[in-house]
């Protein structure tokens, strides 16, 4: 029985754009939900220009969270193009290609949806020389996104592949999803080792590390969930965020293409209100970390 989940946020701050990526090794634990809510909170509470990039498979859950599923079904300019050998040629000859990739939402964030070409792109990345293979997304963010936005949030796929490594290289700070149990602790330790290996293998040029933790879908009515959150905060006092309570409002609103922030107060149960406030606080903590 799941009592709570923790979401992974990868954070990097550059001179011109703050970067974060959600990364969790399993599905159905609210990774996309967190990406969407943190993005909206950053816009509405902090006045930032925020871009969300969905690299997490082809279901386009992030677009669905904002009611854009039909709009992004056949993207005019797919994000998968940036990973191909023709990207520079495309960029030179289609000056507005990044604008064409980007969709506006009703909640203030912009969104680049995923596309089915990402699976093929992951395949072709295998032949890119190692010294460049995992830096393509970083270059894209620096060259194309940094001049336009204050914050970029990436939703990464749950399985480690070349696209994920691009995301980790581009953001460097990684937060591991945890749910109650020794398995999850082991998962965290394994990921920490993997990230350390990347640092060693790149001679410190890239230093992904475990960063912020966001426990989600937490049911504090149970002692086990309460203990789980307390343990997390005790073990990771500088990295554990406010826990996000489980709330039916989240899935109901997702079905309508809205986040908690788009709902009026009288539409929300108490759990929905607490979840919304928790995402606000998580975003506040995230941005403080990014601005350090």
């Amino acid at each position, binding site marked *: 029985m799941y009592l709570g989940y923790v979401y992974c946020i990868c954070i990097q701050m550059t001179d011109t754009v703050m970067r974060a990526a959600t990364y969790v090794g399993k599905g159905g634990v609210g990774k996309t939900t967190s990406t969407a809510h943190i993005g909206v909170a950053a816009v509405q509470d902090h006045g930032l220009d925020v871009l969300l990039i969905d690299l997490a498979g082809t279901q386009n859950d992030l677009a669905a969270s904002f009611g854009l599923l039909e709009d992004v079904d*056949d993207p005019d300019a*797919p994000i998968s193009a940036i990973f191909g050998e023709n990207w520079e040629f495309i960029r030179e000859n*289609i000056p507005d290609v990044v604008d064409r990739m980007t969709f506006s939402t009703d909640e203030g964030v912009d969104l680049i949806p995923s596309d089915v070409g990402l699976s*093929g792109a992951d395949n072709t990345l295998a032949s890119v020389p190692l010294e460049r293979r995992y830096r393509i997304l970083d270059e894209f963010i620096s060259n194309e996104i940094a001049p336009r936005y204050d914050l970029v949030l990436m939703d990464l796929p749950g399985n480690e592949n070349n696209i994920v490594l691009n995301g980790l290289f581009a953001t460097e700070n990684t937060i591991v999803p945890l749910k109650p149990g020794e398995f999850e602790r082991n998962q965290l330790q394994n990921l920490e080792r993997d990230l350390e290996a990347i640092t060693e293998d790149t001679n410190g040029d890239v230093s992904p590390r475990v960063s912020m933790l966001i426990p989600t879908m937490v049911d504090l009515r149970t002692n086990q969930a309460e203990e789980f959150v307390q343990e997390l905060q005790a073990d990771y006092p500088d990295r554990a965020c406010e826990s996000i309570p489980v709330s039916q409002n989240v899935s109901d609103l997702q079905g309508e293409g809205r986040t908690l922030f788009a709902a009026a107060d009288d539409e929300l149960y108490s759990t929905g209100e607490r979840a919304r406030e928790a995402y606000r606080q998580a975003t506040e903590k995230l941005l403080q970390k990014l601005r350090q």
Partner: protein
Amino acid sequence: MNDQEDAEELLKQSKNQRRHTTDAPAKKDRDGSESVELADAVAEVLGEIDQGDTPSNLTLRDGDLAALFAGLERSGDLDRIVQEAHDALDRDGAPDSLTRATALRLLVRVGLAEIDPSVIDAAIEGKQRYLTDQASNF
């Protein structure tokens, strides 16, 4: 088509990539050149064989073929097969021998030539390059 039209077409193709239909592009060396050509590979391996770094024998385990060739020997048909393979390759003179090994050497070449004659041509070119390199070391 002009460059912009080419770029639009490439952009459109990007989203049609699928993992099960996408072949990784030919591996490129650090300077971006394509993989070594077959003739160069043959020349290189001939050198390795001479140095003892690569074995010169080909082996395969196939019960059916083993039975066939044993049968050809016992039935007396192997000589004819060797001769016909020799002729199919337009070789001068007589076959080196009328043994099973000679038959296999010739028949593999016949088969490759039927599938892709350029493979044989590349092999010949590779051998020529290797021999030329050896001669230049005189």
